[in-house]
């Protein structure tokens, strides 16, 4: 545990001294701000009260692009600059390294997420009698779980390459596949698509968390996806030793 924390703390601190991380966070917030403004104006014109969904919708989509940019560095950079040798010859278990990296990235993403609270707070001020608290809570819980899985996948992919660009695009590719994998099932009809639908990110978000519903099976989905990705990341790191 102590090693996990040591590694996570280093990563977390490093993000705050890295211009790339600030850039990603800024882009995320700026783009969200534009969409937020448009959505709020749109709902006022259409005369229905905006709720947290005008924040959650764009946030979830933008996370698909922002997360790879945040996680790509985690292990790829260690490989490129040769410091992976330092960590693998220190008395640190492989899973501690992977989980530590994940935790560092996850905590940084949480700090970005904390900033997006500005939008619901603002929304709460302008809407009478205030926004739907249920959607706010379940929506953010869903986003946090979702983000945990994204960062875990990002760490696992980052263990594969020493080139950050390669990591970025591979991670994004994996995200998009998991985001869209249930689409073909619509053409396949009701049968046969069960598995694909179960694997899909959005199936576990839009019909539940996004609507203010907290379903245990969705929580289990995201937690097990996170655990699986971290396990695969550990395997991949271990396999480096045998290559």
């Amino acid at each position: 545990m102590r090693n996990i924390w040591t590694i996570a703390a280093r990563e977390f601190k490093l993000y705050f001294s890295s211009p790339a991380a600030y850039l990603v966070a800024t882009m995320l917030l700026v783009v969200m701000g534009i969409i937020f403004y448009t959505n709020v104006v749109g709902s006022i014109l259409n005369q229905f009260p905006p709720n947290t969904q005008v924040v959650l919708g764009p946030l979830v989509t933008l996370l698909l692009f922002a997360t790879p940019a945040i996680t790509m560095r985690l292990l790829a950079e260690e490989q490129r600059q040769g410091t992976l040798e330092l960590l693998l010859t220190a008395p640190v278990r492989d899973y501690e390294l992977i989980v530590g990296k994940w935790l560092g990235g996850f905590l940084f993403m949480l700090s970005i997420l904390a900033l997006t609270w500005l939008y619901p707070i603002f929304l709460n001020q302008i809407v009478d009698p205030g926004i739907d608290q249920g959607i706010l809570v379940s929506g953010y819980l869903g986003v946090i779980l979702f983000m945990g899985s994204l960062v875990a996948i990002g760490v696992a992919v980052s263990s594969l390459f020493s080139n950050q660009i390669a990591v970025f695009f591979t991670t994004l590719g994996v995200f998009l596949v998991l985001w869209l994998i249930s689409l073909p099932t619509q053409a396949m009809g009701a049968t046969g698509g069960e598995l694909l639908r179960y694997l899909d990110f959005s199936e576990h978000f839009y019909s539940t968390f996004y609507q203010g519903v907290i379903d245990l099976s969705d929580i289990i989905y995201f937690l097990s996806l996170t655990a699986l990705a971290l396990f695969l990341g550990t395997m991949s790191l271990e396999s480096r030793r045998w290559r």
Partner: protein
Amino acid sequence: MIQVEGLTKDYGLRRAIDGISFHASKGEILGFLGPNGAGKTTTMRILTGYMPPTSGKASVAGYDVIERSLEVRRRVGYLPETVPLYPDMTVFEYLKFMADLRHLSQVEDKVDDVLELVHMEDRADGYIANLSKGMRQRVGLAQALLHQPEVLILDEPTIGLDPAQIHEVRDLIQDLGRERTILLSTHILSEAQQVCNRVLIINKGKIVAEDSPENLRSRIAGSQRFRLAVLGETEGLEKIIRDVPGIKTVAANDRSVFEFETTPGQDVRPLVSRAVVSAGYDLVELYPIGLSLEEIFLQLTRDEPRAPEMAEVDDLLNTALDEQLDQPEEDASELKG
């Protein structure tokens, strides 16, 4: 302290090390000498738990490197060939991070101690990105010493340092070696001889020779090669050199540069310089030259298939040792004439 038996490592089809065995005991500084690509780094990486061998056994500080990897890693200080540093951290932050990973107590005192040991106290708050190569090497060394390990494994610890720093690091290693086991790799023969109690010569994944530096030194004899340069006209110079007693071969390397080999046991340089100058040539350079380490090993291994008599190998080795010894840092440029 270090026990290695029949260690083999394959990278795909290429065999990096081929059944090597050796041991090192407490208080011993064992030198690992060989050209680049000989398998030094691979062996060290196996001993530090970075990767497992394909076959064979190795133990460090009494623990098997595969079965008890974590125990080994706790007891070993390792300086890899490419010094693993985080450029975006300060020296202090970096060492503190490593100390935390090793669960050390009184981290600040220990960091201060190792910084003092490598003479970097005044750069503790500087970013690693701004350090020179030599300073980075010393920070890497500091990292390896943090937990006062029983076994130190240093992969080319003096590479990239200036002569004064090399001297310093060698002294430091000798100091540390009194109560620890040190395995260090180098491709500089004189360094191995100066610092180590015992030298292993490794080439193409095999140990080709093992000896104490004293024995290596005592075996130094044999022929020597020199290079000589003159200014201007060189007509007839080759013959003049050849006529000096004790000269075995002469070859014109360039229009004004000659290489000659002398018979063992006598220094013919005064005779040669006198002959050249008295014949009216302007002698500007006369210095011993050696085969590079790579060349020595190439020759050693080329001879291997037809199983040479030991004398032949010895002779070759001696020549090489001799030449290497004669040209450490200052590159021995003797000007006569």
